[in-house]
């Protein structure tokens, strides 16, 4: 027990004693986490608006009304440009999409509101790498065009002409059911009356609108608690850099085997299990301290709140720290030489971190990948850390992921004890 304690204390002291390395180990995840947290946070400014270039080839009252409506939308930043520049802006990534309103749109669009004819074609140029934004633009375009076209029908001159033309059209259609013809005439007459009566005076352009107000509620720890993007990014970067610490511990052990320190340790009354356990616990303790430092910075500097179980967060952090210690030892057990092992383990770690959702939230992945990543330990750790911070979940939500991480650490430790080349050949 004394030997185990002495070795673990030595590792912790070595970790804390190298001030420069400690500062770098602490600052790197915090700085990267700060950058990513800022990137994924809603700042309530124009920064998150979708830029859409618009080309108005119609220059009608209706096209102007449509673009005006889009311009007032909080989600969009509408920029009128010439046709030649619109495509270039999308190609260069300066805009997510570009909308081209063709000549004749103002005449043709109202006509197609109540009957099927030759519909005008709006062209939407989209950036294929920003499909989510393009989908949003399509939806908002449908809303604003319906509002603009119906407004034109109710109050505009082209709407009145459209109603007269439509009435003539149904008279020319002998196959139309007499009863339907009668009701359609009634509808067109009423709308024409509304358009010409002056009843809509002061409400020009007002048409159909979305028949509800939408109240968005952020589902975080409790109603009214704002989502803090730094909670996830700090946890993500913490997980990443702690795994790097595990790599350092593993590769460090491989390097040590080449040095006289190994001879020194081999002459001490320390068995294989004690020695390897000490390495796991030493690395785990260092990893845990680093996580504490990162979360302290998240709380103190970036306003992250532990809205769930503090004990749960500590439990998950401890489990992940232990996982990291065992991970380092597995690297040392399976690696043949430090140089090759470092490269390979960095690649594996980056995959784990990326698929675990540390860089970007996992919902961005295809559905099959989201399911596949459920078996990745970094995902368990990150989901649990999210749960204990901004989601405000209780201790019970931390028990399963912590148990899985402890289990993984145990399995990896067993592999390491069996595989590690303790004896010199």
């Amino acid at each position, binding site marked *: 027990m*004394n*030997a185990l*304690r*002495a*070795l673990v*204390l*030595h590792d912790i*002291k*070595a970790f804390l*004693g*190298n001030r420069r390395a400690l500062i770098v180990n602490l600052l790197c995840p915090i700085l990267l986490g700060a950058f990513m947290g800022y990137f994924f946070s809603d700042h309530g400014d124009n920064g998150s608006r979708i830029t859409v270039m618009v080309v108005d080839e119609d220059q009608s009252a209706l096209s102007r009304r449509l673009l005006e409506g889009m311009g007032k939308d909080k989600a969009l930043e509408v920029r009128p440009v010439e046709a030649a520049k619109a495509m270039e802006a999308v190609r260069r990534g300066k805009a997510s999409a570009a909308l081209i309103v063709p000549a004749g749109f103002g005449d043709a669009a109202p006509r197609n509101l109540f009957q099927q004819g030759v519909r005008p074609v709006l062209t939407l140029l989209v950036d294929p790498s920003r499909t989510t934004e393009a989908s949003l633009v399509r939806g908002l375009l449908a809303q604003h065009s319906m509002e603009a076209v119906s407004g034109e029908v109710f109050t505009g001159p082209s709407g009145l002409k459209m109603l007269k033309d439509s009435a003539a059209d149904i008279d020319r259609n002998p196959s139309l059911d007499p009863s339907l013809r009668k009701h359609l005439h009634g509808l067109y007459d009423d709308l024409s009356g509304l358009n010409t009566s002056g009843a809509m005076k002061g409400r020009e352009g007002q048409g159909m609108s979305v028949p509800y107000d939408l109240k968005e509620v952020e589902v975080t720890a409790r109603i009214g608690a704002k989502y803090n993007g730094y909670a996830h990014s700090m946890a993500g970067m913490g997980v990443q850099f702690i795994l790097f610490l595990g790599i350092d511990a593993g590769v460090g052990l491989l390097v040590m085997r080449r*040095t*006289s*320190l*190994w*001879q*020194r*340790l*081999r*002459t*001490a*009354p*320390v*068995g294989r299990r004690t020695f390897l356990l000490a390495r796991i616990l030493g690395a785990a303790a260092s990893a845990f301290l680093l996580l504490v430092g990162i979360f302290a910075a998240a709380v103190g500097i970036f306003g992250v709140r532990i809205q769930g179980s503090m004990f749960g967060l500590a439990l998950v952090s401890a489990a992940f720290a232990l996982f990291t210690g065992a991970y380092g030892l597995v690297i040392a057990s399976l690696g043949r030489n430090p140089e090759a092992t470092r490269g390979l383990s960095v690649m594996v770690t980056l995959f784990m971190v990326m698929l675990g959702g540390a860089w970007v939230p996992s919902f961005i992945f295809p559905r099959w990948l989201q399911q596949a990543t459920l078996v990745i330990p970094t995902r368990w750790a990150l989901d649990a850390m999210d749960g204990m911070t901004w989601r405000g979940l209780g201790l019970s939500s931390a028990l399963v992921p912590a148990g899985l991480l402890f289990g993984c650490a145990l399995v990896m430790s067993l592999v390491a004890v069996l595989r590690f080349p303790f*004896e*010199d*050949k």
Partner: protein
Amino acid sequence: MVPALACAGLSRRFGRRTVVDGLTFALAPGSLTACMGPNGAGKSTLLKLLAGTLAPSEGEARINGMDARRGGAALRRTLGVLPERLGLFGNLTVEEHLLMAGRMFGLGKEETRLRTGQLLRALDLEHGRETFADRCSMGMRKKTALALALIHNPSVLLLDEPFESVDPASARAVHDLLAGLPGRGVTVFFTSHALTLSERIATHFLFLDHGRLVRLAQAGELEASLEETYFDHLPPLSPEDLPWLGSSPS
């Protein structure tokens, strides 16, 4: 009586090269043996085989009757080793090395502190007790490593060149310290090129050449001085004439 150190057909090969070649000898408890031989004779490899940190290709080494490779923690507690390349942690001070070693060898906190202070004084390391190992001079590092070999009161000491790289006063201190150990029942086996110092304290001399045992003799059995005996068994190199040395540069 069980020998403190014993080898039977001990060999070690690295690839096709045989570095230690079929050594068989036994040393009684309380003996102080100087292992001598030219560079590359296999002295350091023999020490590693005795310490159990290197596996033999053939044969076996035994310490106090225990297999050097399989003796485990019980064997390690009886053994003090000064390795060839010292094996110090660069991020620990001289004193921290001793405190850590004491704990690893199962000593209590107080006992470790007491022995640490005594060893620091005995080896003239007190002034550098708070110096990190990677900032110590070679002599200080050597003495620190020697203190680490002693702190747990081993019954067998395996020392690789304990007198080299230390100043004359420290070499004398190490000499005096080692000289007193056989009287306390401690067995010492050390490698060295310091013939004069070795001659003064050793009770046995073991000469190695190309991994083979050339001679194992008690101090009283030597027919001549150690230096003469050494060169009788291990002839000096015939010097190559280097006519360009000292000539004017062209």
